[in-house]
């Protein structure tokens, strides 16, 4: 990505003021870390952390035929969820390859919001627009809008994140306007939200209304807060001013990656891309049996997994990196690294890899080697997640 084209989130100046190390990621200047990836990571596992994830994209889908539309575009049973609920889903191309992994928020039968990966916002919007055009030709009522630039998105994650959020919001819940959104149903109290439910939060003192969801990308209890772009700085500083409530630290993309990977959550461009199908990635549970969707026909012809995702740990200290080769015990190449990182919770390197050699049965694979710049480092297959007592296959 050319840094000259990178955009800034509403919080860019705040990151610079706090001394963050800034990198270009998915077309945005983003904080990689403020002080230390490891310290920020462990603070999310033990206390709480706040992330600027305003780079993520948001696309709204509205109109009488929205439910039919979302069920066709997304692989999961989207229209079946209730108002105020969220579902994780994939978007596939006609060949069954993964265009993106997303979350879909349901406001009503006629209104949804899709949260997409920053690097894919334009691609997803163009794809969804293409399908929408086909729908409109058949006289269906669906409109879509890319509202990403108008939204600041904060993520508050960690076991203590509730100690920060609950005291700072008023207990009022009402039907109607909520920041940029319009709730045509009575949302739950924020304290009563379960995982993958959303509501409206009114932040005291600063009088900011924002959509708040119980969701995240760390494997911890947490919230994501969708706030009007022009109010993002005020809300960010308000939450940080109250950091004593939950030992809150600002957290950059570096720890966002190590946290998501320990929790074995996939990252587009690493575990997922258009050459990988949902079976390869082990995401078949997000494919609906009860409806048609784009890519479903192609998936019927995929009898055997072409690749298979495995997770591993290393006994050495060198860190495996994306695209490095993996080799069997006779040093024959059998696949490639998807993600590799250092696990701050375990203090050893961990990773994921795709086995692409059809002669290798991943169920029987225990140990293999990774070619890390010419060093063959021994790896052991494990069952994720990595942040709660990682199990080796033999101890399963």
């Amino acid at each position, binding site marked *: 990505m050319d840094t000259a084209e990178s955009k800034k989130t509403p919080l860019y100046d705040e990151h610079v003021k706090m001394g963050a190390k800034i990198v270009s990621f998915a077309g945005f200047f983003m904080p990689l870390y403020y002080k230390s990836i490891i*310290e920020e990571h462990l603070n999310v596992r033990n206390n709480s952390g706040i992330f600027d994830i305003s780079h993520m994209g948001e696309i709204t889908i509205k109109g009488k035929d929205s439910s039919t539309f979302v069920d066709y575009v997304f692989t999961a049973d989207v229209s079946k969820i209730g108002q105020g609920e969220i579902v994780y889903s994939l978007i596939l191309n006609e060949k069954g390859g993964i265009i993106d992994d997303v979350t879909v928020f349901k406001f009503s039968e006629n209104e949804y919001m899709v949260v997409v990966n920053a690097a894919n916002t334009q691609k997803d919007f163009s794809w969804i627009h293409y399908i929408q055009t086909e729908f409109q030709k058949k006289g269906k009522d669906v409109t879509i809008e890319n509202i990403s630039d108008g939204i600041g998105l904060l993520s508050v994650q960690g076991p203590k994140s509730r100690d920060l959020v609950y005291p700072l919001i008023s207990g009022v819940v009402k039907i109607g306007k909520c920041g940029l959104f319009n709730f045509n149903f009575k949302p739950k109290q924020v304290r009563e939200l379960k995982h993958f439910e959303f509501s409206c939060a009114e932040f005291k003192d600063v009088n900011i209304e924002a959509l708040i969801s119980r969701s995240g990308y760390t494997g911890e209890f947490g919230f994501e807060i969708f706030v009007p772009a022009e109010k993002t700085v005020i809300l960010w500083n308000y939450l940080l001013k109250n950091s004593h409530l939950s030992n809150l630290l600002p957290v950059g993309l570096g720890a966002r990656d190590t946290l998501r990977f320990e929790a074995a959550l996939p990252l587009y461009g690493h575990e997922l891309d258009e050459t990988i199908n949902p079976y390869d990635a082990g995401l078949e549970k997000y494919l609906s049996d009860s409806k048609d969707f784009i890519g479903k026909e192609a998936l019927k012809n995929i009898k055997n997994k072409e690749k298979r995702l495995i997770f591993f740990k290393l006994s050495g200290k060198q860190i495996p990196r994306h695209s490095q080769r993996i080799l069997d015990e006779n040093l024959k190449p059998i696949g490639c690294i998807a993600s590799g990182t250092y696990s701050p919770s375990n203090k050893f390197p961990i990773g994921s890899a795709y086995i692409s050699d059809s002669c290798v049965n991943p169920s029987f694979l225990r140990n293999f080697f990774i070619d890390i710049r010419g060093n063959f480092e021994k790896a052991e297959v494990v069952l994720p997640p990595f942040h709660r007592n990682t199990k080796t296959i033999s101890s399963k």
Partner: protein
Amino acid sequence: MIKNGSFYFAKSHEWIGKDSNNKYHIGISNFAQSELGDVVYISLPEAGKTYKKDGKIGEIESVKSVSEIYAPVDLKIISINSKLNDTPELVNQDPNGAGFIAEVEVLNTADISGLMDYNSYQTFIASHHE
């Protein structure tokens, strides 16, 4: 450990300096460690081995990246800082002291005059990395 004013820096961000016993040490600069972030692994050079100026002597790996370490001058490794095997974070905590890489013998002292002193290095960083 290294006497003030006796640090010299390479463009590749290694330092070399003399301690109070006139022994030379090498390490990576404070700027370099701050750019790398949390260091989790260092592949150290071999004691007894000689390296040419700008030759690769090791690797330093942080959570997000890996960089090569180069010899700032023609040198021979007298001993390595073996504490870095178990506590590589010393490079972040004290890059000019306890986080040094190795004690070395300088094989060509003229090489040192080609390096930057502290002030020149600060100017170099400011002009190349801002």
